[in-house]
């Protein structure tokens, strides 16, 4: 630590390394976003409404392009409702019409009723552009870290501190 302060060149290199790690992660995320055409290509499950298929903390990979077929009934989609920040992972159970204006209704496998009540007031159906991706792959539990981080904000500080410390302490 002290030696790196005494040697400004090495301190600069370490700072560069840290910046490189951050920008690589950022570019990979954005690159994935471009490939999948989804603003959020990987999401963490936050609720139990799709249990037992998806539990809290599971990682879902999304795909938002209609290459061969349209988004149709039975697909598990992530959608966001106007005026609400938190995206919802549910299954499409009804589809009326075709194309971008087709009316879609969703429901959580574990819920008794459909999602009409979750939609914005006056909104009875979703359309294609409300959907930010269809789930195509699944890894269990790995995303639980982010739930811990959002529920215990002090963990964020601790983790950032630790990461910084490791970067500063290690040489090359």
């Amino acid at each position, binding site marked *: 630590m002290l030696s790196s302060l005494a040697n400004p060149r090495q301190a600069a290199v370490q700072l560069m390394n840290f910046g490189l790690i951050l920008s690589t992660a950022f570019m990979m995320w954005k690159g994935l976003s471009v490939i999948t055409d989804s603003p959020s290509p990987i999401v963490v499950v936050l609720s139990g409404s799709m249990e*037992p298929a998806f539990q809290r903390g599971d990682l879902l990979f999304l795909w938002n392009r209609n290459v061969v077929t349209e988004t149709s*009934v039975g697909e598990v989609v992530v959608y966001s409702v106007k005026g609400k920040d938190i995206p919802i992972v549910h299954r499409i159970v009804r*589809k*009326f*019409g075709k194309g971008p204006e087709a009316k879609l209704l969703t429901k959580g496998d574990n819920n008794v009723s459909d999602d009409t009540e979750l939609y914005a007031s006056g909104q009875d*159906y979703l359309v294609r552009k409300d959907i930010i991706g269809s789930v195509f792959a699944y890894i269990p539990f790995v995303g639980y870290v982010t739930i811990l981080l959002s529920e215990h904000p002090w963990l964020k500080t601790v983790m950032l501190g630790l990461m910084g410390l490791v970067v500063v302490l290690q040489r090359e």
Partner: protein
Amino acid sequence: MYTSVVRLQNVFGFFTTVAFVVAAFIAASDFVAERAPIVRTLKTTSVQVVRGRPHYYSSKKEEYAVINFSLDADLSSLFTWNTKQVFVYVTAEWPAADHSTTNATNEAVIWDSIITSPSADHLANHWSRRHEEAAQERGREDGKLVLKNQRHKYKITHPSGKLATTENVTLRLHYNVQPWVGLLTWNQDVDYGYWKALKNGVSKRFKLPAIKEKKPASAGSR
């Protein structure tokens, strides 16, 4: 230079690499496991159209199709060591009423069921109404579905509120295999390698009857 931080980093890095490689192998093993779903029968047993309201406080009247059916299918080959659950669902499909948009289709789920694999049985929530369902559905644990005159789970309607005398309606069986890790897969119309297509999963075309005058306490899909 081997400080304890570096050692810790190496151990963690090695652990994640091994974990992901093992997970990738498990996910890939799906493709060499044979899938041969069989449907013996899928047919309607009673079809009605009733008038109702979307919810109790609504004054809007809509037509609801009430479709009961029989299903005899064997999906047991979908269950492998990487299967967490199979979501089975039956949809009703019909073409649009006005011929200006001839290729427009309508599709709605009338019944669904979660069949957890034995390895995921502890996750199934037995407090819900699925418990009764499980008792009704013989042999659902191993993916063999024998449903006789199964009651619909969802009454279906159309945004226009009109459904009576709709023609060319079909029922179709679908499934979605949920893995412990890997790709989600659905029933397919053509064979892919070891995975056979789901054949015979469509009912005969039928016509929805005219409205039967009856007021259910709460129609709708709840």
